[in-house]
C-alpha cells in the first residue's frame, strides 16, 4: 500500500508522537533503574528502522551528523546554564584535566585495547578517539534525574568533566580522521592544535556569554516566549562562530552557557525551563537517530569485540586514567573510584563515529558498529549502578524532598531581589521559631510556607516546623548570608 500526502506526513507524525508519549510514560521506570531514559529511544529507533517492523530506511550519515551536532550544542548549552560557578570553582582544575588530558589518555588506552584485539592501527585509533568522552546528557540525567545526590565535590566534578570533555573528543576524532585519510602520522602538532582549539573555544565562549547577557538585558521583547528563542539562537551562533574562528565550538557553547546562567537573566525561569525541555528532546533525537542508523544485521559480526571493548573501557581504561590523573588532588580514594566508575557514554560517540564515515576514512564503518556496544554497555553498567555505588561508598548526601508547591517570580525585565527557598532542618535556628522572631533584615520577608500538601500563609505567629519549605523574598542579595545563617543553605530548584 502506498501513501500519498498528507497521509504520509500524518503517519510519520503519529508514529513520532506515539514514540515520544510512550518513552515519557516509560521514563519513570528507566529513572528508577538509572538507565538514561533516552536509551529506550535507541531500541525504538532500531524497532522502527530499516530492519525492524517500521522499515524506515535511514542511512544518511551526513544528516545524522548535522542533527547530532545541533542536538549536542543544545545539550551542552543547557548543561552550562545549570552549572553553578560556585560549585565548579573548587574542582575546576581536576575536572579540566580530566576533560582534556583524561580524554586523550582514555582514547590512547582504548586504542591500545582495540589494537590488542587485532584491529588495524587506523581503526583502533579512530575507535579510541570516538569513545573517549563521557556524555554530558547521560551524566546529567543519571545524577539529576535519578535522584542521586552526591557529595557536591564529586557531583560537580563529574558534571563539569562531562560537559567540558566532548570538545576534546571531537578534536581528537577530527585529527585522527584527517591522519587516516591523508596518511600523515599523528604528532605533537596534533596536540598543539588541540590546545589552540580549546583555548579559542574558551575565549569565544566567555566573550559570547558576556555579549549575549548584554543583549538579553537591553533588548525588551514583548512576548516572554521569545526569550528562549533568543537564547537558543545565541547557542547556535556561538557554536558556529567559534568553530569558524578555529576554536572548539562545543566548548564555546558550554562556556557561554555557564557565563549566561551565572549572571542576571531576564525571564530566567522561562528560559531555563525551555532549554531543559530542548535538551531532553535533543538527547532523545540523538538516540532515535542512532537507532535508525544501526543495521542490527551488521552488528552480529562484531558482537564479541564490541562487548570486550566496552567492558575494557569501563573497567580498565577509564579507571586507570581517572585514578592516575586525580592522584595529585584532594580527593579520597572512594571519591576517585566513584568518578572513575561513572564514565557514562552517551550519544556523542555516535555523532563522532559518523564523522570518519562521512569523510570516507578506512575502517570507519567497523568503528561505527563497535561504538554501538560501547554506548549501550557504557550507559547500562555504570548507569544502573550509580546509586548503588554512591550509597556503598558513602558519597550520597541527604537531600530534602522537593516541596509539593513551587513559588517563583517571573519577570521579563531584571527586577531587584531574589526569591530563596529553604527546607527547615531541625539543626537550624529557624526550626520551631515564630516568623515574628526571625529578626530578618528589613527588606526580606517570608512569602509562603509549604507544609506537606498545605500552603500556609505566613503570619507573625506562624511557627516553622521541621520539614517545612519556606519561600523568602529578599530584595538585597547581600542579605542572603544572614538568611542562610538562620535557615541553612538555600535550596536550588
Amino acid at each position, binding site marked *: 500500500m502506498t501513501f500519498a500526502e498528507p497521509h504520509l506526513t500524518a503517519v510519520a507524525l503519529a508514529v513520532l508522537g506515539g514514540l515520544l508519549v510512550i518513552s515519557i510514560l516509560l521514563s519513570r521506570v528507566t529513572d528508577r533503574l538509572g538507565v538514561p531514559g533516552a536509551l529506550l529511544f535507541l531500541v525504538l529507533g532500531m524497532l522502527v528502522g530499516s530492519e525492524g517492523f517500521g522499515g524506515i530506511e535511514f542511512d544518511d550519515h551526513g544528516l545524522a551528523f548535522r542533527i547530532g551536532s545541533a542536538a549536542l550544542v543544545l545539550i551542552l548549552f543547557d548543561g552550562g546554564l545549570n552549572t553553578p560557578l560556585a560549585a565548579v570553582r573548587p574542582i575546576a582544575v581536576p575536572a579540566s584535566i580530566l576533560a582534556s588530558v583524561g580524554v586523550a589518555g582514555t582514547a590512547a588506552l582504548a586504542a591500545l585495547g582495540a589494537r590488542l584485539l587485532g584491529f588495524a592501527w587506523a581503526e583502533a585509533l579512530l575507535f579510541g578517539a570516538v569513545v573517549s568522552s563521557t556524555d554530558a546528557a547521560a551524566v546529567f540525567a543519571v545524577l539529576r534525574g535519578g535522584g542521586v545526590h552526591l557529595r557536591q565535590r564529586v557531583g560537580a566534578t563529574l558534571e563539569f568533566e562531562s560537559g567540558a570533555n566532548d570538545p576534546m573528543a571531537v578534536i581528537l576524532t577530527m585529527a585522527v580522521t584527517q591522519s587516516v585519510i591523508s596518511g600523515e602520522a599523528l604528532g605533537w602538532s596534533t596536540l598543539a592544535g588541540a590546545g589552540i582549539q580549546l583555548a579559542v573555544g574558551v575565549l569565544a565562549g566567555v566573550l559570547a556569554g558576556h555579549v549575549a547577557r548584554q543583549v538579553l538585558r537591553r533588548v525588551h521583547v514583548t512576548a516572554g516566549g521569545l526569550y528562549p528563542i533568543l537564547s537558543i539562537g545565541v547557542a547556535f551562533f556561538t557554536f558556529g562562530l567559534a568553530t569558524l574562528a578555529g576554536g572548539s565550538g562545543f566548548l564555546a557553547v558550554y562556556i557561554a552557557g555557564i557565563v549566561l546562567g551565572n549572571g542576571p537573566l531576564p525571564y530566567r525561569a522561562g528560559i531555563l525551563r525551555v532549554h531543559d525541555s530542548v535538551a531532553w528532546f535533543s538527547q532523545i533525537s540523538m538516540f532515535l537517530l542512532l537507532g535508525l542508523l544501526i543495521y542490527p544485521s551488521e552488528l552480529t559480526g562484531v558482537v564479541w569485540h564490541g562487548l570486550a571493548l566496552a567492558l575494557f573501557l569501563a573497567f580498565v581504561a577509564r579507571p586507570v586514567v581517572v585514578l592516575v590523573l586525580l592522584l595529585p588532588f584532594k580527593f579520597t580514594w572512594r571519591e576517585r573510584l566513584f568518578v572513575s566508575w561513572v564514565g557514562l557514554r552517551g550519544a556523542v560517540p555516535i555523532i563522532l563515529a559518523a564523522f570518519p564515515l562521512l569523510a570516507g576514512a578506512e575502517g570507519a564503518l567497523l568503528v561505527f558498529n563497535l561504538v554501538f556496544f560501547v554506548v549501550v554497555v557504557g550507559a547500562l553498567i555504570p548507569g544502573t549502578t550509580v546509586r548503588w555505588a554512591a550509597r556503598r561508598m558513602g558519597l550520597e548526601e541527604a537531600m530534602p524532598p522537593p516541596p509539593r508547591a513551587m513559588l517563583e517570580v517571573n519577570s521579563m525585565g531584571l527586577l531587584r531581589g531574589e526569591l530563596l527557598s529553604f527546607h527547615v532542618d531541625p*539543626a537550624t535556628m529557624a526550626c*520551631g*521559631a515564630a516568623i515574628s*522572631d*526571625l529578626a530578618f533584615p528589613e527588606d526580606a520577608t517570608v512569602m509562603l510556607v509549604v507544609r506537606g500538601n498545605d500552603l500556609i500563609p505566613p503570619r507573625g505567629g506562624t511557627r516553622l516546623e521541621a520539614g517545612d519549605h519556606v519561600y523568602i523574598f529578599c530584595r538585597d542579595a547581600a542579605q542572603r*548570608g*544572614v538568611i542562610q545563617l*538562620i535557615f*541553612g543553605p538555600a535550596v536550588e530548584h
Partner: protein
Amino acid sequence: MIRITDYLRESNILLEGTGTSKLAVLRELASLMKQSGDVTDVEACLSAVLERERLMTTGIGRGVALPHAFSPAAPETAIGYIRLAAGVDFDAVDERPVHHVFLILGPATTQGRHLKILARLARLLNHEGFVAGLAAAGTPQALLAAIREHEEALLPSS
C-alpha cells in the same frame, strides 16, 4: 532591645586562640565557656554546633564565623569569642580563613533571643570598622568596648 555585650562575658573572651582546625577552635572556645560556668558539657554543645555546621558553614565571610546551637548543656544564653591570629579554615563562604569566631549557645526556650543575637552580629559585621575593631582590641575589656561602640552606632538612639 538586646545587647551583644549583655551576653558576651569577659571570661568567655579568648584573644589568642591556638586551635588550628574548625573542631579544635570550637572545642577550645566551648571549654573556656565551661570554665566560666556557662556550659555544662563541652561535647554535647559541640555535637549540636557541628550538626548545624554540617548543613552549611557559619563562616559568613570577612574572616568571621558565627557557629551556634541550642543545647540543654548551655542553661542560659551565652556568647563566647575567640580570636585566631593565624586564621583557621572554616569552609567559609568566601573561602577565606576565619580570624574571629562568636559561638552562641543557649537552651531552645530562648529561640527569639538567639535569633536576634545572630541577626545583630550579622549586621554588625557589615558595619564599617567593626571587624577591624575586633582585630585591634588588646584586652577583653577593649573588645567589649569596641563591640558596644559599634552597637550604639548601629541602633537607633532610643
